[in-house]
Each structure stands twice: as structure tokens, then as C-alpha cells.
């Protein structure tokens, strides 16, 4: 019993197809190759605590380093990274070692968790990307933490300027902030559509849009997304499910996984993933008299937090707000094995959701999984449980 898709006339969404094509060509997308062919530099980034605006302002195309959106053989990844590192970090390393990211001129990471940290170490050691940088990211929101992170972002900018042999002017930064904020606002508009009883876009389709956003120039992405919003406003396609679901967990960018949930009738209406809502959630706000670097560092530390941040309540409150706004019936937590921060927070989150009567289905998965028979049984039982409660 899949989600019901109704379509009174055959309105296609050509822009969604264009986004899909970008993802199909990943990692060597046409947009990336075009930027390279014009002599532009392409940098990889890892983890949402890396300020993309700095790269963009320097004329660099930032590309998010991920694995393929499916499970893959990790013969080298497992040989170089001990298996208690998550399969996400091993998948990225595998692709790097295979030379699939050979077009990168730089690699920037945040020392947010052991997985990211070790992946960066090995990348620096074995993959000869010309530029490497890792930012220390504090775990708290205190004044001192903000000072430290501001220093880190400044140092990153200086390191980049030294590498490029030129300064990154403030005007450029302001322009980049505008471009990225525009993108965030458009993604917010897209998510607003999903609040409807029968949204015009499914969860799996939304994930295609987000995946493409990491793999093409933001200006082009913004233009396309505007086209898509236009098409959606005219479209008569609607999606209705047995239950409205939210997916939480660290990193997950496989539309097939969402598809396997939606194929059973669970409509995914929102999420808390670093590859989705947590990526675009907050805009950069430049206060009067404040330097753009300061504004950027503030936004990145205060953004919708990863489970690594303390106290956890900030994250829980935001999740609870989303549950209310999107009228979520149930939450699916997908945690990649050995993602300690998320695994440890889950019992606390479960309690908070229990207070508002929202059940949680906890799935332990590997990065890129698309839903095995066992996962499907659990999802089906979860949906039946939600339906039985509604009656």
C-alpha cells in the first residue's frame, strides 16, 4: 500500500528531472566539470559546520563529500579505517581512494566527530588533494565557544587566502551570504509545501533536490529551485499517506531509503538530517557594524544543532517544533551504526516525544541502505501501530 499519488492531468516536473540527472552523474556532475573547465577551483567539504560562504566568496565551487546514495563495497575503506568508524566515513574514503574525487582542489572538514576527524586524517595522508583544512568546532554555545569558533573561521579564511595568493574581500563575503540565504529561503518555501494534507512533493523527491544542492553552483541551484517551485504551484500532483512521518538521524541522503518507507504508505513530510533540514535551516544574519566572518561563524555554531552539541535540549526543542508544525504522526530514527552522538541522544529524544504522544521507530542502519526486508517489516508494523492508535 504505497502513498497515494493523484494526478488529474499529466503535469510533469521537468526541473525535478534535471536535479535527478545531476545526482545520477555524481560525483563528476556536468556542473562541476564545467566549473573546472573554466579554470575554477572545486573544494570538497565534510560536515555542516564547514562555512561554505568562505569558499564561495573565494570563487571556489563547494561540493559536499558523500558516498553514493547506496550501499557499496568498502574493500579499501575497511582496510584503512577501523570498522567502528561509521560506514559513512568509510564510504567517503572508499570513493576518495578510488580516485572518484580526483577533481577536488581542496578538502575542508570540521572536527565534529571521530568519523569525520579520522576520515580527514586519512584523506590528508593518502589522497593528494592540494589543500587541506580542518576546523575545530566547540561543543557548546557559550561566549568563549563563540570566540574560539570565530578564530577558527578566521584562520580558515587566512589559510585559504594564503593558498590562493589573494585576499577575500568583505563585499564578496556579503554577496555569498546573500546567495546562500536565498537558497535557504527557497528550500524553506519547498518545505512549507509539505505541511499540506496532501503535499505536491514526496519525501524521496525532496531528497533529490537537496542532494543536487550539494553538487552544483548555488546560483544555478537557486534558479532551478525557483523553477521547480513554480512548477509545483501549477502542478496537480498530490501525495497522501497512511501516516505523516519525520526522519531523524545524522547523515542520510539516499532517496531510495525514503522511497521504501513511502512505498508502504508512510509519507515523509519533514526531517532532521544534516543532509536536509539541518543543512539549510538558519540564515546568516549580519548585524549592524558586524564583520561578515563574525556573522558567518555565529550562524554555523548556532545553526540547528548536530547531536554532538550540548545541551541536547536545543536540538530536541527544534525537533518538537517541527513535529507540531508538520503534524507528524510518527518519527523514524535512522542511525548509522556506531554514530555515538545520535545513539546516545535517542533515549532522551524518545522520552521527549513520548510526552507529546509521538511514537519512535529506531532503525540501526548502514550508510546508503535502501531498506531491507527486515526494515520493511518494521516500517510496516510501525505504520500499523500508528493507524491502530488513531482508531
Amino acid at each position, binding site marked *: 500500500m504505497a502513498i497515494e499519488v493523484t494526478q488529474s492531468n499529466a503535469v510533469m516536473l521537468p526541473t525535478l528531472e534535471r536535479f535527478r540527472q545531476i545526482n*545520477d552523474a555524481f560525483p563528476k556532475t556536468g556542473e562541476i566539470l564545467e566549473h573546472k573547465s573554466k579554470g575554477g577551483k572545486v573544494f570538497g567539504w565534510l560536515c555542516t559546520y564547514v562555512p561554505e560562504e568562505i569558499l564561495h566568496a573565494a570563487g571556489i565551487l563547494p561540493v559536499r563529500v558523500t558516498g553514493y546514495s547506496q550501499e557499496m563495497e568498502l574493500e579499501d575503506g575497511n582496510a584503512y579505517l577501523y570498522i567502528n568508524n561509521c560506514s559513512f566515513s568509510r564510504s567517503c574514503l572508499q570513493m576518495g581512494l578510488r580516485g572518484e574525487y580526483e577533481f577536488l582542489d581542496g578538502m575542508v572538514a570540521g572536527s565534529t566527530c571521530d568519523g569525520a576527524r579520522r576520515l580527514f586524517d586519512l584523506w590528508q595522508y593518502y589522497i593528494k588533494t592540494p589543500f587541506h583544512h580542518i576546523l575545530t568546532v566547540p561543543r557548546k554555545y557559550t561566549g568563549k565557544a563563540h570566540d574560539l569558533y570565530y578564530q577558527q573561521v578566521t584562520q580558515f579564511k587566512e589559510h585559504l587566502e594564503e593558498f590562493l595568493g589573494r585576499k577575500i574581500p568583505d563585499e564578496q563575503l556579503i554577496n555569498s551570504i546573500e546567495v546562500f540565504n536565498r537558497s535557504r529561503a527557497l528550500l524553506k518555501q519547498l518545505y512549507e509545501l509539505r505541511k499540506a494534507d496532501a503535499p505536491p512533493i514526496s519525501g524521496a523527491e525532496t531528497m533529490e533536490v537537496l542532494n543536487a544542492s550539494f553538487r552544483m553552483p548555488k546560483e544555478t541551484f537557486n534558479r532551478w529551485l525557483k523553477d521547480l517551485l513554480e512548477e509545483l504551484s501549477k502542478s496537480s500532483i498530490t501525495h497522501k499517506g497512511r501516516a505523516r512521518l519525520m526522519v531523524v538521524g545524522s547523515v542520510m541522503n539516499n532517496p531510495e531509503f525514503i522511497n521504501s518507507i513511502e512505498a508502504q504508505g508512510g509519507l515523509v513530510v519533514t526531517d532532521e538530517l544534516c543532509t536536509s533540514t539541518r543543512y539549510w535551516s538558519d540564515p546568516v544574519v549580519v548585524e549592524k557594524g558586524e564583520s561578515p566572518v563574525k556573522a558567518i561563524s555565529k550562524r554555523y555554531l548556532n545553526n540547528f544543532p548536530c547531536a554532538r552539541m550540548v545541551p541536547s535540549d536545543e536540538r530536541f526543542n527544534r525537533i518538537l517544533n517541527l513535529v507540531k508544525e508538520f503534524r507528524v504522526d510518527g518519527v523514524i530514527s535512522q542511525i548509522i551504526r556506531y554514530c555515538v552522538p545520535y545513539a546516545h541522544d535517542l533515549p532522551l529524544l524518545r522520552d521527549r516525544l513520548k510526552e507529546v504522544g509521538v511514537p519512535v521507530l529506531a532503525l*540501526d542502519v548502514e550508510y546508503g541502505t*535502501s531498506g531491507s*526486508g527486515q526494515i520493511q517489516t518494521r516500517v*510496516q*508494523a510501525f505504520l*500499523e501501530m500508528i493507524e491502530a492508535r488513531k482508531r
Partner: protein
Amino acid sequence: MIVAGIDIGSRAAKAVVMNNGAIVSSVTCDTGPESVKTSQMTIARALEGTGLALDDMEYVVATGYGRVLVPFANENISEISCHARGITWYFPEVRTILDMGGQDCKAINCDAEGRVNNFIMNDKCAGGTGRFLEMIADVLNIPLEKIGEAALRSKQAIPFNTICAVFAKSEAIAYLRKGVSKEDILAGLNEAIATRCLNLLKRVSIEKEFTITGGIAKNQGMVAQLREKVGLEPLLSEDPQIIGALGAALFAEDRCRGKAAAVPAKVQYGYSDGTGNYFITIDTGRCDGCGECVPACPSGIFEVAADDNGQLKARVKEDARKKLALLCPGYEVCLSKLGRNCHTVCPREAINHTW
């Protein structure tokens, strides 16, 4: 109102036939390599001697691991919901269920009406499942149905460090060589499995009353260990193995009672390969025999032929059925390489895959 519930598990297939709220018959058969055949055989056995035929069933609900491959079922419901519903027939006071099956183990917390509050399944590991016990019985050369009482005769259970199916097997063999009695080895393994189950139960919270369902609930040695570990006397039904099928039959009754207008029957036909892990289903209720899928498949596994009623329907070719996993590259692969697959070309969305 005559209904049936059928539970195609990984090791055993169960069926329950009910007439106006009373159980007419129930059977347990071995699950064969082909789920479709197994389901047909199981229902035939359940109907034997009842004077009823499959056509008399007003509604059939399928559950268990092979639930999507039951061609005559009107609906499929997960085994988790079915166990919770089924146990209310015997013990409405049960709140905590431990279902110990052939391939997995589930802890379920439910309410008085058999609605699931919370559940958890063991992860991709055979440790502590029916399959595991079968293997150990084989190593110890004791018939499976005797291992329960054998464990009860143990004087000193041997502590096992692992219930990883592979490691525990080698450990058991090592103990055998040292001259440890089979009874003590079995008791040790039961204890290790019970500890693991306790861990699952604690994660859904243990509430009174407690029951054990599934094939392993027939093993007295295991039940004794669980009684001790959980600290509650488990309420055991006369045949704990059929609870899933019984739940399915009860759901079928609910559906009959609730159906104002006739529910269009979903006619699924499934094809699975030898492992039972890969299968294609064709919803013959939707399929209009247009034949779009025939040229779309790079391995040419589909054909259109007249069914028993003389209507044209798509099906998987006879000779391709056995080699399905080998021939079919998987729908994602087709989509990325060819830009289309049997799902996308089917105008009525009748075809489905598991890989």
C-alpha cells in the same frame, strides 16, 4: 463469516481457519523454498477435512516473512501486529510478548485490545533464533523437539561467551570434545539466549502479563530459562506457534465486519528465487496484459499469457522463475543503465520488486 489467517515464517508456515469467531482448524507446515507453493499447500492442509474450500473464505490476511507472496490473500499485515492481536484471543491481559521465531526474535508491548505500543526486533544476526537452535541440535545429534527436555536435565550449565551462531557452534564442539555433557551445553546456550532476549524485553519495558510465542516457545528448557531471567511466569497458549496466523485471522474477521462495501481484492502473484530473498510480484488485479513490461526487461523474463479465466496477464516465464536473482539485474540498475525498468513502463503500477 469464514476467514483465514496465514503466516509464512522463515522455517514454518502456519494457517488458521475461523468460522464466526471459532477456530475451525489450524496447521503448521515446513516452509519450502517457494513461498507461493508453501502458502497454497498450507491452506490446503488447513482446509482438509473441514468441508470448506478456499473459495468459501470471505477474507484472507497473510503475515510473516513471506506475506507478500500469498496469491490468495486479500491483505498483508506485519507479523508484529498479528502476534499482538492473536494473543488477545487467549490472554487479553498480556502486555509483553516475546516472539521467538525461526529467523528473528521480537519483543512487543501491547494493550488489552492487542494494539502494539512499542516493539523491537533483533538485528541482522541469527544468534538466538530457531535456526540457531536447529544447528546446535544437529551438532549435538539430538532431535530438535528433544533439546528442550534435554536442557532441563542439566546439572551444571556451561557459560557461553557468545551466541554468535558461528562462534557458538565451534565453542559447543570444543566442549563436546572435552567431554562436557550435551545437556549442560544446551542449558548454557539457553541461558545465553535468554539473557539476550531479556535485553530486548527491557528495551520495550516488561509489564505483567508476559507470554512467549513462536516455535521456540515449545522448547521447555528455553521457557524455564526465560521464566527465571524475566522473573514472570509466562502465560503459554496450547500452540504458541500459530499465534501469528491466529492474529491474521482475527484481523480478517475485523475487516469482514467493517467492510460496508466490498473491498476490491488485491490479487498478487509473486515469483521468488530459490533463496526466497528475491522476488517479483505482479498485481494481477491491476495488470491489464498490455505487455509494456515484456520488451522493457533486458533479460526478457516477462511474458503475457491468458490466465485461468482467459484474461491476458503478465507473468514471469516458467524457465526464468528458478533463476530470477541471476537474470534480473535489479530495478535500480535497469533504471540507471537503460533509463527505464519494469516499474516505470507499467502504466498501472502492477509490478514490484524486492531488489
